[in-house]
């Protein structure tokens, strides 16, 4: 795979308009920094917890904060097809942080407590599930989320008689695009006359565990694959929050207004290796989006080094304290494995039935309304 991506901000097919326009407000820069920092501090706490034996496994997204913080701040957050449906993978910590997820809940999942709101101690950390924000359960199998995305995108497109603005956002890594499921998403989102409002994001860190993507992938850019389908795309430096925010917004606005698919490929870093299985140690030779951004903010006199250090110290301290409390929370009971095998009521019908044609008997019958 082509290595010169750091110079690439957008591919020829990127639409519409040039990158340079529209600098971000100081307030927004501060928010981006705050989310990135909080998310990074959380990841570092999670890694520490794992190394101390509080939680069996860690996987997350340190090195992807610039992109994911931007994404999280731009999501149209809510429940049901009028809002964005989110099919994330396991590196979306900063996205959820930007959306306002409680870091204590993330530590609960890390420690697989009964109080873990995402999976009640069943799933790995950063495997979110939040129906009230349309966060579809994150699952470990690579790329399957790309087969489901067309379905929620159809719901988005129909919502409110076609006047809805909600879109579907699906994220995944670079190596995973080798699965046929990635092609499935391109194929289904581009059906002539049936184009779907789906924003596909490939977070390209150039690795699949220990395998360099360039050794397996002939594509100059993975994003090039959507051209045959007439899907617009962009390849961006996902390590610069200013570029990332502008480009995610541009892509999102396009999908929201045109109700058509868009593929965004963001070049990002993997700062602690693949997961705890590979040691989860800091990798010095990759661009650290947070360090780079803080330097910018300092140079531009937006924040002082000291202020940022204090902020980091405060978040670190708060998370440490919270992690101690989480450690005391109860573990699931064994018998809990029998719970939630089946749903009693049609939860997903709650917000959707006014858009879908016809009432929702499953829900009605089961009295969930």
């Amino acid at each position: 795979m082509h290595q010169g991506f750091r110079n690439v901000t957008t591919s020829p097919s990127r639409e519409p308009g040039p990158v340079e326009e529209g600098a971000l407000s100081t307030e927004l820069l501060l928010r981006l920094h705050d989310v990135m920092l909080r998310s990074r501090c959380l990841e570092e706490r999670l890694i520490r917890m794992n190394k101390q034996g509080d939680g069996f496994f860690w996987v997350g997204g340190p090195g992807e904060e610039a992109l994911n913080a931007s994404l999280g701040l731009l999501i149209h957050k809510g429940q049901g097809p009028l809002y964005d449906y989110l099919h994330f993978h396991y590196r979306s910590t900063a996205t959820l942080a930007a959306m306002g997820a409680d870091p204590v809940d993330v530590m609960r999942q890390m420690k697989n407590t009964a109080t873990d709101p995402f999976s009640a101690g069943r799933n790995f950390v950063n495997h979110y599930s939040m129906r009230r924000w349309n966060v579809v359960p994150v699952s470990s199998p690579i790329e399957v989320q790309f087969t489901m995305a067309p379905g929620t995108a159809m719901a988005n497109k129909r919502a409110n008689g076609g006047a809805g603005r909600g879109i579907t956002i699906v994220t995944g890594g670079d190596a995973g695009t080798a699965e046929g499921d990635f092609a499935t998403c391109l194929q289904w989102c581009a059906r002539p006359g049936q184009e779907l409002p789906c924003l596909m994001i490939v977070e390209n860190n150039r690795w699949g565990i220990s395998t360099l993507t360039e050794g397996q992938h002939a594509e100059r850019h993975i994003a090039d694959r959507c051209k045959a389908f007439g899907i617009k795309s962009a390849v961006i430096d996902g390590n610069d929050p200013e570029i990332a925010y502008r480009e995610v917004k541009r892509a999102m606005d396009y999908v929201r207004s045109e109700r058509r698919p868009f593929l965004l490929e963001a070049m990002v870093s993997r700062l602690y290796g693949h997961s705890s299985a590979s040691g989860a140690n800091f990798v010095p030779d990759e661009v650290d989006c947070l360090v780079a951004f803080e330097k910018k903010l300092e140079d531009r006199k937006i924040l002082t080094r000291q202020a940022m250090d204090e902020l980091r110290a405060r978040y670190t301290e708060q998370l440490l304290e919270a992690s101690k409390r989480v450690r005391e929370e109860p573990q699931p009971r064994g018998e809990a494995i029998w719970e939630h095998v089946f749903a009693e009521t049609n939860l997903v019908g709650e917000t959707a039935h006014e858009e879908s044609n016809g009432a929702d008997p499953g829900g009605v019958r089961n009295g969930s309304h």
Partner: protein
Amino acid sequence: MATVVQAVRLALHVGEERLGVTDVFGQDVGPPLGGVFTQTQGLRTAWNSPLDERGIVGTAIGLALGGQRPVAEIQFCDYAFNSIDLLKLAGGICWSSAGDWNCPMVLMTPVGSGIRGSIYHSHSFDAQATRIPGWKIVMPSNPLDAYGLLLSAIADPNPVMFLVPKALMRAKAGPNERIPGEPDDDRALSRMIDAPLGDRSRWRADWPRVEDYFVPLGKARICREGRHVTVVTYGRMVPVAMTAAEQAATTGVETEVIDLRSLAPYDWDAIVTSVRKTNRVLFLNEDTDVTNFGEHLLRRTVEELFYELHAPPRLLAGAHVPGIGLADSLERASVPQVEKVAQSLRDLAGHAA
């Protein structure tokens, strides 16, 4: 009387009009064909998908999560084996999220042999399906059950598999098995809902006003009562069991035939009650007989009813070979035939208490 395929079509129509079904889709499901077995002709929400089973299952999951009510079809269950991971995923969405999400979708697919479908149009799916937790699984053996089970499947908030025996697609309902509201005259029904040959661009179905009829998921049906032997079966093997029971009766063996109808959840009480009465049981299906669902039922029977059994319980199922061959002789040698079933009934009855 409606055929199974007409019953399916009527149920999907009711689903669209009264149960909130938003999508009936899959390969060749929409116009002009309306399904390779005509099962989706004339439906308002039917559409054709790309030739991609993984996309079909994944999109159905997405539609369900998006609050829609999809009924997705895999054209032949033989082609669902590239999507077992997605079926497992769908079955695990509620559990993995600790009840945060549910996934109300119906997956419809023709199963089994009996149409000389050769290696890839003869597979069964019941054993595979019952291995996937989080799914409800139904399999009708007649038009009325097809109608009533499909309505219940659509109304259920969980993923439900609707397995239709290929060989029974054209089977007609028995005299007192009329779908409530269907016209008395078969030819009238056909004129109303069967698409004409040739150009169909201006054809519209003229739907009869059929009524709600829900067959509860998990409830078996006793098709025939008997004192000597119990047969626990479903789908295409139900008529086979009935004929075999007739034959056995000529030699004085009174067979009780249970049509399970739902494989998950299944009606354990019905099995227990019958086996307590007959003390002899045959489990019958056409799927391959290594790691077969009938073996699960047999195992549970042995564990819970061992001391009530007057004869070793038996399984009759398909031959554990890579496929079902095209030639008649091969297909017959691969799945249980009436003679063999009747013989097993006599053997079982032959065991003294």
